[in-house]
Every structure is written in structure tokens, then in C-alpha cells.
């Protein structure tokens, strides 16, 4: 198939449909509106259902109902809306239901702004809702990657019975890039024997639930969840290493910021400075091993984390670097986008200081 120019938000929606998603529950918020708009037209054509909920709170609970009923379900929102969905996400994680949640991140806190940001990293990877739980968090850096990973996200969700978050930003959502829709590698997926489909008189009732009133049972449930999280960490951690070998300075950046950093790396190379980048593709599980390996690499003098936030992922980079090499930060936030030139300048400052 020839490549076609697709807007990120619409491409994500079409990818979901191609992955077999037939139910979408959402609520309008900028800059992700093209996703529900696209779904409202396309899903009925595929025999599916699009429903505009009365709030993000209702939308995520419709997802809970749909996912518990055994369907492939998606919702999308942007930062303030994800905060409202946090309650439902915690329940979905607790009840171990598969679904895909898209967050096209904008500036915060509060109403913040509507321009691209990455300041929901903590919310996505450290909880957001209450309780000990994790989501698989995927951060595509191009529209093509968003399409590929959205399709795979539904399989991941079904395989592990876990909500998967696609975390983009306003740039990924709004930009157009060439896209090719390719089939994803087939996974062996378990049957949804737990889903509520009516007993048909043939089995005991299925209960979709996250309540464990006995503390020992509740602890056991958490232990079970974390066994699963360990398995996901072992199997699903994704990272791109770019020119890390022989690098003096290693950037850590994800999503669209990683693309800006690549420009900076190329500029630094022209000036004779060897720079590389670790680009986490999964934010959870975080590619700790890649950072550890770079920290042990003799050529590496320092890490420089670049984010569209005041510095959130840097915590995970520091934990992984474990004091072996200094970890620096450069960021813009609130919808401001770092420029390659500013990143280059900061990298030079870091190297100057490291010498």
C-alpha cells in the first residue's frame, strides 16, 4: 500500500478500527477532538458504536462496562480529561480489564493550555488514580509509530488484561505525516472467559470487580497484579538507542521531543561532539536497562533528559543511572516547544561542566 498523509489523531482512530476496536466512548477536549469525530463517522460503518458521553467520568465507566463485556474498547482525551478519567482507570486496572486510552497531552496544571506538553508523565506512569497499579504507557514519536503501536496496544491489553495508554502530545495529534497501515504480528491471545456475556445457563456468573474487603485478599490481589507487571516489564519494554555507542553525552527523550533532540544530535555531530539518545517507547515499563548500560559505558560523561515539562521522566533516568553518571535536565513547558538550538547549547554547557 502506498503511503498516505494522515493527521495523527485520525490515524490513531483508524488504527484502532483496524485492530478490531468497535466501541468508542469519549467527550470533547482539545487537542484530541479529531479522534471522537472520526470515530463517530467510521464506527457505525463497521457495525460498531460511538457514544459521546456526558463527561469524561461517564466515558471511562462506559469503557469499563464495554471492556468487561468482552469487547475491544477505546477512549481518548487530553490532560484535564484524563484527570477526570483517573477514577475509572484505577477501577479498570483493579478489575484487570483490557482497553486502550489515548492521552493527547496539553499544558497544565489546571486548565493549563492547549498546546503540546509532556507534563502528564507522572500521572501516566506513577498512577494518576488511587492504588498500586500500572498502565502500559506507549509514547509514539511519529504518526506511523502511533498507528503501529495503537494496533499493537489492543493485543497487549488483551494479552495481559491491562489498560494501555497511548501518550502523545498536541503535535502528534495534530500533525500530518505519511502513514502505511500494516498488519501487526499476531499474538496468541487468551479467550475472554471472564467477560460478562450472560451465563446462558452454562456457567457460573462472572463478576467484574475490584473490591476485596478482606485485607489479605486485597493484598493477594495486589501481589498478583505485580507478578503480571513484572512479566510485562520483562516482555514489553521498548526503547530506541540512537548513536549511543561512543557518545559523550546521552540524551533521554520521548515522543515528539525525541525528534527535536535528533536534530540537535545531528548539529552536535557536525561540530564534532558525539551525542546519542535513549528514546523510551514504553514509558512504563521504563527502559531502565538501556540507561544502566549507557551509565556503564566509559565514553558517556553525562545524561541530559529533555522533556516538555519541568522534569518528570528525569526521576526514572536518575534511578536507572544510579549515581554512576550525572543526569541533567532541559525542558520547556506549558505548551512551549524546545528548539534544537537551545538543546545544543544546553548540551555544550553540560559537557563544559562535566570536563
Amino acid at each position, binding site marked *: 500500500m502506498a*503511503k498516505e*498523509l494522515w493527521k495523527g489523531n485520525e490515524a490513531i482512530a483508524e488504527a484502532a478500527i483496524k485492530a478490531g476496536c468497535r466501541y468508542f466512548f469519549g467527550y470533547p477536549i*482539545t*487537542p484530541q477532538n479529531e479522534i471522537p469525530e472520526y470515530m463517530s463517522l467510521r464506527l457505525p460503518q463497521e457495525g460498531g458504536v460511538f457514544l459521546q458521553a456526558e463527561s469524561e467520568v461517564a466515558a471511562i465507566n462506559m469503557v469499563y462496562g464495554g471492556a468487561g463485556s468482552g469487547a475491544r474498547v477505546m477512549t481518548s482525551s487530553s490532560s484535564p480529561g484524563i484527570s477526570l478519567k483517573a477514577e475509572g482507570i484505577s477501577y479498570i486496572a483493579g478489575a484487570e480489564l483490557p482497553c486502550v486510552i489515548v492521552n493527547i497531552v496539553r499544558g497544565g496544571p489546571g486548565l493549563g493550555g*492547549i*498546546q503540546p506538553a509532556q507534563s502528564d508523565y507522572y500521572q501516566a506512569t506513577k498512577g494518576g488514580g488511587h492504588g498500586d497499579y500500572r498502565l502500559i504507557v506507549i509514547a509514539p514519536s511519529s504518526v506511523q509509530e502511533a498507528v503501529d503501536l495503537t494496533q499493537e496496544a489492543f493485543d497487549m491489553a488483551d494479552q495481559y488484561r491491562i489498560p494501555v495508554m497511548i501518550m502523545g502530545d*498536541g*503535535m502528534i495529534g*495534530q*500533525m*500530518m*505525516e*505519511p502513514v502505511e497501515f500494516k498488519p501487526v504480528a499476531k499474538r496468541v491471545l487468551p479467550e475472554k472467559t471472564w467477560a460478562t456475556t450472560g451465563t446462558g445457563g452454562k456457567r457460573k456468573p462472572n463478576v467484574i470487580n475490584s473490591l476485596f474487603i478482606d485485607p489479605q485478599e486485597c493484598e493477594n490481589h495486589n501481589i498478583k497484579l505485580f507478578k503480571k507487571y513484572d512479566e510485562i516489564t520483562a516482555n514489553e519494554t521498548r526503547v530506541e538507542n540512537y548513536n549511543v555507542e561512543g557518545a559523550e553525552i546521552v540524551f533521554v527523550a520521548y515522543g*515528539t521531543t525525541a*525528534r*527535536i533532540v*535528533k*536534530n540537535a544530535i*545531528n548539529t552536535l555531530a557536525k561540530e564534532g561532539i558525539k551525542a546519542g539518545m535513549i528514546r523510551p517507547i514504553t514509558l512504563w515499563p521504563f527502559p531502565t536497562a538501556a540507561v544502566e548500560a549507557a551509565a556503564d559505558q566509559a565514553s558517556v560523561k553525562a545524561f541530559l533528559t529533555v522533556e516538555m515539562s519541568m522534569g518528570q521522566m528525569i526521576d526514572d533516568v536518575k534511578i536507572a543511572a544510579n549515581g554512576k553518571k550525572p543526569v541533567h535536565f532541559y525542558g520547556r513547558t506549558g505548551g512551549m*516547544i524546545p*528548539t*534544537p*538550538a537551545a538543546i545544543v547549547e544546553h548540551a555544550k554547557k553540560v559537557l563544559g561542566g562535566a570536563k
Partner: protein
Amino acid sequence: MTHEIIMAGFGGQGVMAMGKILAEAALKEGKNVSWLPSYGPEMRGGTANCNVIVSDEPVGAPVVSEATAALILNRPSLDKFEGDVIPGGVLIINSSLIDQKASRDDIKVYYVPANDIANELGNGRIANMVMLGAYLEASGAAKQDTIMEIITEIFSGKKASVIPVNKEALVRGAACIK
């Protein structure tokens, strides 16, 4: 070769469409492309802009901070984006609506009376195509024929009658580049 273009004007001047058509055409010619719009309330009546990148290499940052060219359709956009053009870059100013001259002397500046030409052609809405025609001539970012192929795809069926005037607009724009 990498073209990094800023296109800017009032909402409704066809800035977004012009960028998309260029990106589609360059993609058709086998280039790597990206199109990034400004979005939000500023689209309603205020200044709208988009960033287009056309490159032989994979596209890095989709945000254009060092533009090889800027296509400026209104006065506020000139003030906002003139400084983003790299030395030796191209600045095309819609002189029908902008009476101000460029302040830089290290870039190539072209004044194109895009709205006047569009009105002469009997379709005030195609000033954007006049600007695009001028830019293609100045940069070679895509072929005029490929642009026409894309325009023909867009205006198929009932709207096909507007295809010839778009072609004329591109040609008249190109003629402004000397």
C-alpha cells in the same frame, strides 16, 4: 535537501490547505514530509499558520524554528515570522495586504500581489495558490505538475470547474519570481 517552510496568514486565507497540498505533492514525489498546524482558538479569525517540511532525509522535529522559507499572507504574520528565516532563505510577502517591507537584507524577499492576481483571475479565494506558485518557482520544493495532480484529486466531481483557475494562479505566482 530539506525545505522547512512556515506558512501564515488569517484564518480563512487557505494557509492550512496550501500547506497540505504542498505536503501531498512532495509525498507523491517520494519525499519525506510533515505538516504541523497551529491549532486552537487562534484559528477562528486570528492568525493561522502551519509548518511544512519536505526532505530527502527522514523528518526530525516537525516544528520549524529555522525556516528555509516563509510564505506570509498577512501583516501580523510578517512581524511574527520574519526573524525565523535562515540567512539566504526565502521570504514571500503577500503585497496585496501587506504594505510593509521586509526588514532583513540577508534573505531573498519576493513581493507577490496575491489577492490582486486572484481577483484578476475572478476567484478571490485562490490567493493562496498564487503564493504557492511563487514559492515552488523560488524553491523547487515540488513540481507544479504534481501540485496540479493533487488539486485535481481534491476538486473532483462537481467542483472540477475550479481546477483551471488554480493552475492559472500557480503560473501567475511563479511569474512573480524573477
